[in-house]
Structures are given as C-alpha cells and as structure tokens.
C-alpha cells in the first residue's frame, strides 16, 4: 500500500461502495456478530486457504462446528495455523466473531510476533439482519438477544480498535455496504522488490556533504547546485537506470547536514533514491516537531546548522523525515537495506519491533568501557537468502559476514564514505577530508584481528548441520540429506574429524564397473570402457589405483598462509585427513614432515607462482595401506587367514585319510583342497600393501587431483592436466608416481591394450585401476556421469569379498550386485564436494562450506554394500 499518513485511521462510511485497500501481507481480523456475514465476506474476497475460521476449527477438533465447549482448543488451532501462515509471509484472515477486546488481543500479539500489520474489518449490518439470517439456520438456535449483545459490544469497542493495535480499521455498517465493498491488496511500503535497480547504496554520511558529492561523482552521478539562501536547490543526474539507497544517518556530527538533506530529498523526490530512516533522523525529526529531546551525539551541530535555514526548508525536512521507511526490500527480494541491519524474519514486514531493530540494531543490554551499549552480533547469526546492507556501527573496513555488509566506514570520524554497487557488489570508497568528529570509541580494534567473517565463523551452529537438509549444488541441483543421516554424521564430525576450518572437502565414494560376465571374473576393464562409451564419452583416462588410504591434503606455503586461508591457530602448515575427515596421522609431526616433503616438490616445480597461490588442496592416496589399516589387518584379515588355513587343512587331511581307506570322500577331498588353495592365496593378498613404517621416508604419497588453489576450483581441467601436475610433483621416493594412460574408446586396439595393462598391474599385486572420463566433470545425455569407476584386480577382491569369493558357486551369486545405490551416492557426493570447494574458494561463510562437507559424511551413512 502506499503509506498511510500516520494520522489517518478509521475509514468513514459515506454510502459509496467502499474499496478496502489492505497490505498484501497482513493479519486481517474480521469482527462481527453471528449472522453478520463474515464467512460469506471472507469467501468472496479471500482465497479459501487464507481464511481460518473458528467454526471450521471447532469442527476439526470435535466434529461439531457449533460446540462452544471446545472453543479454547479451537482457537488455539486457529492461532497455530495462522502463525504458520504468517511465518511464511502469507496474508491470513481470522474468521471469528471477535466481539470483545480480549478476543482480539490474541490476534494483535500474533501479528506482532510475525511482524504482520493487523487489519480490522468490522461487519455491522445491524442486529436485526443478523438475527434474521440466524433464524434460517437450524444450527444457530439462539435469539436476537445474543446478537444484540454482540452488536452493542462491537460498537462500544470500535473507538478503541486503534489503541488495541490495529493499524487499519474498516467498518461496513449496512448489509448493502458489506455487499458492495471490494478488497484490494497493495505491497507494503517497504516492499520494493519490483525495483531491480541497479543500486548504489551509500553508508552513514553524518553531514559530510563534500565527501558525499565526491562519492556521487565517483559513482557517476552529476550534482548541480543552483540558487542561494532560501532558493538553494540541487538536482542530481544519475547514470542510466541507477538509483541511490541511503542507509540513513544523513545528519549530525558533520559540517553540513542541510546540504546532505537537500541532496537526499531531491533524489528521493525525483525517484532517484530511496532513503531509510537512521536513528539520527528519528531524533532530529522529533526535535523538529518541537518535542523534548536530549541534545547529544552530534545533534547540536545539526541544530546549529539549521539556524540559518528558512521555514520552508524546515517544513520540507520535517515531512521528509516523517516519511522515511524503516527499511527497503529490493531487487526481487535479493537485497534489503536497513540502517542498523535486519533479521531475516523481519525483512519485508512491518511492526514496531522491525522499526526499532532497523534503527538501533540489537544490543546485549551490557555497556562497554566507553559507556556505549554492547551490540549483539546479529550478523553472525544471520542465515537469510537476502543480502542485508546496513550502517549504524562504524567499522574500519566493509566486510561481508553471512550475506550482510556494514558500509558505515566512519567518514565523519575521519574514516571513509563507502558505497556498494549492487548487483556488482563492488565497494567504492572516498576518504574523509578530515576528522569532523572525535569518536567516543576508537574505530580500529586493538591489535590485528581476523576477518569479520572468520570471527563470525569461529563456531558453526548446530542448526546449520542438523535435521533434514537441502544443499543446492551447481553440478547436480538440490541434494537432500535425511535427518537420520545428518544425525549419524554428527558424532563422527564432532568427535573424530578435524576442525571445520580445514575440512573444505571430502572425496566422493567410487563405484566399481559393471559386473563382468566373463567366467572367473567379477570386475574387468571392458565393462568400464563400455559404460563410458555408451554414454558418449570419447576418451577416458586410466589411472593405476594405489592400495593405500585415501587422503585429502591441504598444503600451505607457510604457517602464515595456513592461518590466513584456513584460520589455522596452531602454527601448522597444512592438514591431511581421511575420507571421513579424521586426521590421517595421529602424530602432528608426521603430518608436518610429509607436508614439508610435498612443499619442497611444489617449490621445486614452481607451482606456487604458476598458480598464483600459497595453498593447494590435493586429492591423494597415501601408502602403505597398513599405515592406517594395520589394526584391521591384525584383527580382521590375518585371523581369517589363520582360521581358514587351520580349519581347511584339518578337514582336508581327514578327508584324505577317509578317502584313502575307501570312504567315498574323494570328490569332497578335492573340493576342500581347492578351498585350501584359495585360502592360501587370500593369506598373501594384502602382503604387497603392508610394510613397516619407521618414518616419513617409508611413506608414499601419490597425488592425483589438484582440487583447488587460491581463487580456483580445478574441476574445469581435464584429468591429463591433473596427472601432468602429479607427474611433475613426483620425486621417485616419498611423492610417488601414478601410472596412467589415455584410451580412445572407439579404438578397439587401444582398449585391448589398456586391458592388458590392467592385467599386468593386477597380476603384479596392484589393486587395479580407476577409469575416468577425460573431462573432470563429464555429462552425458542423462546428466552428470560417474566421475570415476574402479576396476579391481581379482586377487585384491579376495580381501574385499573373502578368501573363496571366486569359487564358481560363490561368484555366480556375488555377480548379483546392485550398483545403482552406490552410483547415485557417488554423484551426489561428487556434486557436494565440488560445491563445498566452490564455496570455500569464493570465501563464503564457513558454515556454507561445512554444510557440504557434513552432507558428504552424512550421505556416507546411507546403507550401501561396503564391498562395492
């Protein structure tokens, strides 16, 4: 609605058909005696879903819409439903008699809680009309006395509706007026979402008229003054299509508040600017209205400067100040500007609380050593989709925190006047000409401090990770994480994982190739090649799969770089973690020693300069397997080897003795001999992956992806590029090479050759290979493709599927394995991993990065056959 004058209130009735102009977001309370036609009125002017009727709720509670004994419960239900609608910013109509003030109080409170404007519509066709209508309804067996009492009570309360808190009151006092009335809806005064800008949002000016003009000049606005004295006027020509948004506090403290006001008033008047109210405007306005205010905080300067101004200017200023918005909501809802900031649940809404918050922000109630109120850090808790730009609290530098930005850089205190270009998100600064006003509290925090976002990030809120979650990814749209999966990840993440500051990424799970149909095999390269060929991939990369443990490595050029980029606090120069986010090594010294080796290699090949970065995120395999898995070998694999050997040999020997003396056990004897053979092979299966580790020299690290570095996520580079970097990093000792080759899928000979290569690798004790499309992110006709498929060797699979998995009778059953779940998981985790890296590189708030990483871990708790 275009804003009501604050003095206008009851709409009077002059007999002409009425148009009730209400806000498009409001709590509409119908008031009328039984039979006054509320439900018909509501049905005529509102959507069925907008109307919450007390009768209907009585029915829901007890099957009888007229059972007054359940009223208390029915009204609780009305309030509950209405509350949910208001929470979602939906216009809501309460259809009940609402005869007495106490009946209406509940709705006023509800509207306040959700910052909706309460609107009263009184339907009063007269008691006779009501009684007559009721007579025709068997479910309303009461006489005219009841309706008379209701009507008189309503009429008595009419004058107090404003006082009760209704911001608009409409009264329709004849049956005809009710029938003829229409309802229109208008956006709230603060709702300018249709205006898509572009905008230049200017911080607290405080009378710094010269700096404002310089800043406007920088932004491309032409300011032209004319006239002198009472005729002094200004006109501003904006660059094409652009508009200014003033965050308030135009006045006080500075040298020339009147000219600042002239510029703002001229631009607002010409539709070239919006201006939201600052606390200084509020107080100055009250002074202008002649109210008693304490002169302080620089108001004296403005008062002095107004001395020489004429009466006409004063009146215009008074009207201008009276008309300022609490905040303005712009650009399709993507942007909000408020003087002291605004909580997400207040944007585009109206209430006293919204206005107060927008003006003063939130304080903790404490007073600091300078006697100023301690501000609660609402921005640290902000989670909204709408960017909130605000001022009010002078800061040294404008820094984004959780999609909010304070652009009060203390110009009047000798800082800068700052503007934000929207949607470009560019900051434009003009330095103060001098310190116009000494600040009570020094601007700069004592000592160097981490970035505002880092401070806000120090802790992730449980609400940011728990419950059912939706994470929007750029690779695969929205990924859903079920509540129970998030819960399962919480313990792992909080008790075992590295600090979230480090964990920018967790690798996705990897699916095996389709199951081989060839006799004696479970997995073969042919199926992996066919998989990608069928999905339109021309070339794949085959990489040797090391049998170690997956590791993600954050490698920084120095401890300082680690502190800068990862907010590291302990002097470490990086971190190495497992696929579940745990520290890879229990001993920090081992981590540092390995990082030092890698850093030496990065240094040697000049990668820091080449990529203009001082940190890297690498995806790698660290060997030996036993470095992480020795206890698994000891408690899991070795016992199976010992038990199978002992049991099968005892059985075999007995069978042989029985067969020797003529019992028909020959076939069984042979079968057990074969079983014993497989058990022996099993006992050797992990030998190549186990060696003692005495120090870093015994470790092997084989990087295969360069995930990210300063400003870049390297998923847009093909795998050969990544492997070339891996090759360069190899030192032939600790930094191990990964053998790899490209294969053109249309070339049968090349495929056969790669298959032979795989056979050689696996025959020599290798785990197998990984087949990837040449593109890091590959898409086929049906969307995102598997980023990689593993093809494991037959001997290695013995560790996974057990000693005797390849006996024909077992293999035939193991072939019936479903890969869809695993593959779907791999894609979701791949998309989440990429999203987390992207957000990390874009320096989004930590919780936004952590959300993705947490989601990967949560998805890992989905029940999937771990042998895949």
């Amino acid at each position: 609605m275009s804003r009501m004058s604050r003095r206008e209130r009851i709409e009077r009735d002059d007999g002409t058909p009425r148009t009730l102009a209400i806000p498009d977001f409001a709590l509409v309370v119908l008031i009328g005696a039984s039979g006054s036609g509320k439900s018909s009125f509501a049905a005529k002017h509102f959507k069925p879903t907008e109307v919450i009727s007390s009768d209907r709720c009585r029915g829901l509670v007890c099957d009888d819409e007229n059972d007054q004994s359940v009223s208390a419960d029915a009204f609780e239900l009305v309030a509950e439903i209405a509350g949910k609608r208001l929470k979602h910013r939906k216009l809501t109509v309460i259809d009940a008699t609402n005869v007495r003030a106490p009946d209406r109080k509940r709705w006023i409170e509800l509207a306040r809680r959700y910052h909706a404007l309460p609107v009263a519509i009184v339907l009063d066709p007269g008691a006779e009309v009501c009684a007559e209508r009721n007579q025709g309804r068997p479910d309303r067996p009461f006489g005219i006395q009841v309706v008379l009492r209701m009507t008189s009570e309503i009429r008595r309360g009419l004058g107090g509706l404003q006082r009760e808190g209704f911001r608009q009151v409409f009264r329709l006092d004849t049956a005809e007026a009710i029938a003829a009335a229409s309802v229109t809806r208008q956006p709230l005064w603060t709702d300018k979402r249709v205006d898509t800008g572009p905008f230049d949002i200017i911080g607290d000016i405080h009378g710094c008229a010269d700096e404002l003009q310089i800043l406007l000049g920088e932004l491309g606005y032409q300011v032209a003054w004319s006239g002198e004295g009472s005729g002094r006027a200004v006109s501003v020509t904006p660059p094409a299509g652009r508009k200014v948004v003033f965050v308030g506090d135009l006045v006080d403290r500075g040298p020339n508040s009147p000219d600042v006001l002239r510029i703002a008033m001229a631009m607002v008047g010409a539709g070239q600017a919006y201006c939201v109210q600052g606390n200084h405007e509020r107080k100055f306005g009250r002074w202008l209205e002649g109210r008693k205010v304490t002169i302080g905080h620089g108001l004296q300067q403005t008062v002095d400067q107004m001395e020489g101004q004429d009466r006409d200017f004063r009146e215009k200023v008074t009207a201008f100040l009276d008309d300022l918005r609490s905040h303005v909501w712009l650009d399709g809802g993507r942007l909000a500007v408020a003087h002291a900031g605004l909580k997400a649940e207040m944007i585009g809404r109206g209430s006293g609380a919204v206005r107060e918050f927008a003006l003063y922000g939130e304080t903790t109630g404490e007073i600091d050593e300078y006697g100023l109120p301690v501000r609660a850090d609402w921005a640290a808790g902000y989670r909204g989709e709408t960017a909130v730009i605000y001022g009010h609290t002078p800061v040294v530098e404008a820094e984004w925190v959780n999609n909010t930005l304070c652009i009060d850089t203390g110009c009047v205190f000798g800082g800068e006047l700052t503007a934000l270009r929207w949607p470009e998100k560019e900051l434009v600064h003009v330095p103060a000409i001098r310190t116009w006003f000494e600040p009570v509290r020094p601007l700069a925090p004592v000592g160097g401090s981490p970035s505002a976002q880092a401070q806000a990030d120090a802790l992730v809120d449980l609400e940011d990770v728990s419950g059912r979650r939706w994470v929007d990814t750029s690779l695969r749209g929205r990924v859903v994480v079920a509540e129970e999966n998030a819960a399962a990840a919480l313990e792992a993440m909080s008790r075992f994982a590295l600090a979230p500051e480090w964990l920018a990424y967790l690798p996705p799970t990897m699916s095996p190739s389709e199951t081989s149909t060839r006799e004696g095999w479970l997995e073969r390269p042919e199926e992996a090649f066919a998989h990608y060929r069928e999905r339109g991939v021309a070339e794949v990369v085959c990489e040797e799969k090391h049998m170690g443990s997956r590791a993600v490595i954050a490698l920084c050029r120095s401890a300082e770089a680690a502190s800068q980029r990862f907010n590291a606090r302990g002097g470490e120069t990086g971190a190495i973690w497992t696929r579940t986010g745990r520290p890879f090594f229990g001993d920090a010294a081992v981590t540092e020693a390995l990082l030092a080796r890698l850093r030496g290699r990065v240094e040697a090949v000049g990668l820091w300069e080449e990529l203009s970065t001082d940190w890297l995120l690498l995806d790698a395999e660290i060997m030996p397997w036993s470095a992480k898995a020795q206890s698994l070998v000891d408690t899991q694999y070795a016992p199976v080897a010992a038990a199978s050997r002992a049991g099968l040999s005892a059985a075999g020997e007995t069978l042989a003795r029985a067969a020797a003396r003529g019992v028909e056990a020959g076939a069984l004897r042979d079968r057990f001999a074969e079983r014993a053979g497989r058990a022996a092979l099993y006992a050797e299966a992990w030998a190549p992956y186990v060696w003692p580790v005495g120090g870093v020299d015994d470790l092997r690290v084989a990087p295969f992806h360069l995930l990210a570095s300063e400003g870049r996520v390297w998923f847009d580079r093909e795998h050969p590029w990544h492997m070339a970097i891996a090759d360069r990093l190899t030192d032939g000792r600790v930094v191990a090479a990964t053998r790899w080759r490209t294969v053109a899928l249309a070339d049968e000979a090349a495929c056969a050759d790669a298959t032979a290569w795989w056979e050689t690798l696996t025959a020599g004790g290798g785990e197998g290979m990984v087949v990837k499309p040449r593109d890091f992110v590959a898409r086929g006709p049906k969307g995102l493709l598997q980023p990689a498929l593993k093809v494991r060797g037959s001997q290695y699979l013995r560790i996974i599927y057990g000693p005797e998995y390849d006996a024909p009778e077992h293999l035939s059953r193991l072939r019936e394995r479903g890969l869809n779940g695993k593959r779907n998981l791999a894609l979701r985790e791949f998309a989440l991993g990429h999203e987390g890296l992207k957000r990390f590189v874009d320096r989004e708030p930590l919780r936004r990065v952590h959300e993705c990483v947490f989601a990967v871990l949560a998805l890992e708790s989905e029940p999937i056959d771990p042998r895949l």
Partner: protein
Amino acid sequence: MYLSVATTHRPATDLGFLLHKHPERLHEVELAFGKAWLLYPEATEERCEAALILDVDPIGLVRGRGQGDGLLDRYVNDRPYAASSFLSVALARSLRTAMSGTSKERPELAESEIPLEAVVTPLPARGGQALVRELFEPLGWTVELEPVEGEGPTRYLTLRLKGRARLSALLNHLYVLIPVLDDDKHYWVGDDEVTKLLARGAGWLETHPSRELIAKRYLKHRSALAREALARLAPEAVESAETREGRVEPEAEIEKPLRLNDERMGAVVEALRASGAKVIADLGCGEGKLLVRLVKERWVERLFGVDAAVIDLERAAKRLKLHLAGGPPEGRVTLLHGALTYRDRRWAEADTAALVEVIEHLDVERLPALEQAMFGEARPATVVVTTPNAEYNALFPNLAPGAFRHPDHRFEWSRAEFRAWADRVCEAWGYTPEFSDIGPVDEALGAPTQMAVFRRAGA
C-alpha cells in the same frame, strides 16, 4: 569348523552305533547356513575316529541380511572357518540321539564311560589357554592345547581333550563350551536359550566352578537371561553374577579399586548444589549417570542432557525412565543430540553446565571450539569441569606407564596443565576458577580426578 571324536574302546567301531552313523559312509547334513559332513577317517577294532566337518556357505552368511548393515567385517570374517556356535548347531542337528545319551543298538555302552579323545580346531579362545583349561579340566578332561599359527599370534587354538566319559557328556560339554570360548553366537539369543543351556548343562553345569561365566557368555551377556539361568541352576549364586566377567568400560576397570566414579558424581552433584544451580545442562551426558542422580534432587528445576552418541541418549532415556510411568514429569529432563564443538541454543536457558570427564575425549585442537561455544556463546553462570589427573596414573597398578585410562582419551592433563588451561579460559571469557580434588589425595601426585568450577564474573 572341525571336530573329531575318537575312542579306543573295544570294539572301537561301536562308536558308529553310538553316533548312529555308519563308519563306512559319508554322511551329509543340510543346515540353514550350509552343510556338515560326518565321516570316519579311521574305523578299526582298536581305534575309531569320527570327524564332523562344517561347510559353511560364506556368501549365504551375508546375503539377505540387509545390505550394508554393518562394516566389512560382516563380509570378511572367520565365521565360516572358526569353531563356533555353527559347530554346536551342527552337532545338535547331526548327533541329536548321541547327545541325548541313548542308543538303540548299544544302550549300555551309551551309559558307560569309555576312553575318548576329541579334537576341535580352530577354536577361537577369548580368555586364552587358561580359560580353556578352567572350563574343561573341572569336567575331568586332560587338556592339550596347540596355538594355531598365523602371521602373528592368533587367538585360535587346536584343542585336544582326553579322558574317560560317556560320549553324550563329551558332546554336551563341547556343545556348550565352544560358543562360550568364542564368546559369540550367530543367532539371536532369546529366552528359550536358557532352557537349552539348562538341558545341555544337566548334570555338570550346576557344579561347574565357572558356571557364572558360562551362563553369561552362553547367553551373550544378556544379564537378565544369565540371572534367570543362574537362578534356576543355583538360586544362592545370583548376587555375584553381576560383578564378574562383564564387558566393563576399560576406564572403570582401571579405576575400580577406588570406586572413583561414585565419588566423582557425588562431588559434582555437591559442587552443582553449592553453586546454586537450578537449570543444569550435562554436556556429554553419555548414558545419563549424572542425570540419574540429579533428577532425584529437589533443588534441580530442569535438566538437559546433551550427547553426540544417539545410542547413549537412548540408554540414558531408558535409565531415566523418560516418558514412562514413574519417570520424571514431562519437561523436567530434556535429552538433546548435539555436539560440544557447535553452537547450540537449545540448552541456552541452563544456568549451569557440567562437563564430567568429557573434555579429554576431544582432540586438543578442538577445545577452542568447545571453549567458545561454552564460555563465549552459552555463558552459563557456572561451569563444572572434571578431567583425569594424569600424574595420578602412576598409582594405577594395571595401567601401563604413559597410557591413558580410556582408549578414547585424546589427552590426560597434569594438575598444572589443567590449571593453565582453566586460567586461560577464565582470562579470555571473564570467569573465575576454583579447583578441587576428587578421590583419595596422594601427597605427591594429587587426586585421581581434578575438578574446576568456573564462575562467570558478575553472575
């Protein structure tokens, strides 16, 4: 997976009559989890030996059991090969009559003690050779044990029993004691398992010196069932069953002589009461040991229990009888799944937080997050923290030097280290600490547990 029984009773081939299995044939028994083969590698007048070979289907074991419901150990494990409850089931299925001690052909032989020899391999013996002897020797068996060789030491043994006994006695001893040594069962242990145990144990279990352990392990540590079994075996023995051979927390095992946990809880409750706590958040509440004590206190208005482990919270709810008749009134206790390294507003109204033996379960690097969440964000008026005093560890007889009291402890602090941490936290967040000891105080090494009560300045 291998069991053999031999006799030198003459004619030894009568063993075939006792077992109801012809010595010259290969006998096949179908089982739910695979097959068993019974055959005689030796069958002469002088000596006759019958062998039961288990042929467990390793793939069938894991198929249709709910995919992915568990880790890899479900798929690669020793179950198809080790002597376990599978073997007991195979025994019962293939030699039911022999086990009951009857024989149509040789009834008097079934009743008499004959020279017997049995071999079981590989027998996973949890408790080692000593326990194997403890279990079989009181039954009159001469026990020979030979470790099964692996790459390193294994827990498998080849067990050889020699002695004179009725065949059915031998079979019943093996039936019960193999899974007891394995300390596992491949099937769900329900109430009928008590009946089975009593039937198979008839005549020997009542007087076995290790009957409590046998009952407990056989019934898979379901203490209610074990108590029932013991009550039916020997009613006077019940009280002591609780105290022996449970799967106890390692920490409790080490600290046991001190009954430290009780003392610690008492000290914490007292510190909370003295601080004027009304609404208390027990962070890292685990199974609710502190909550159970606090819920009984009248000065406590409301309780929050927060833990990262859902399973512990479920146990705590059970212990507290939450939402059950006779439990605390609705709203008095709230259990929350949460983690201390995240900001959590759900327990913000608590005026007091207790971190009892919790901080040492977090990596030192993660403590700043806990500090900020606790002292920076939640800022309760009082915070009570207890943690082990590492110096005192020297006085625990069964704790190796340098070792922690619990495998999940990430650190254990000396008194100086704890104080330094507490002082730094107080300095940073505006609290004052007060330190005290819990447990018997050693002059040089202090008390086993140290406690700090943090008070917010001005609170």
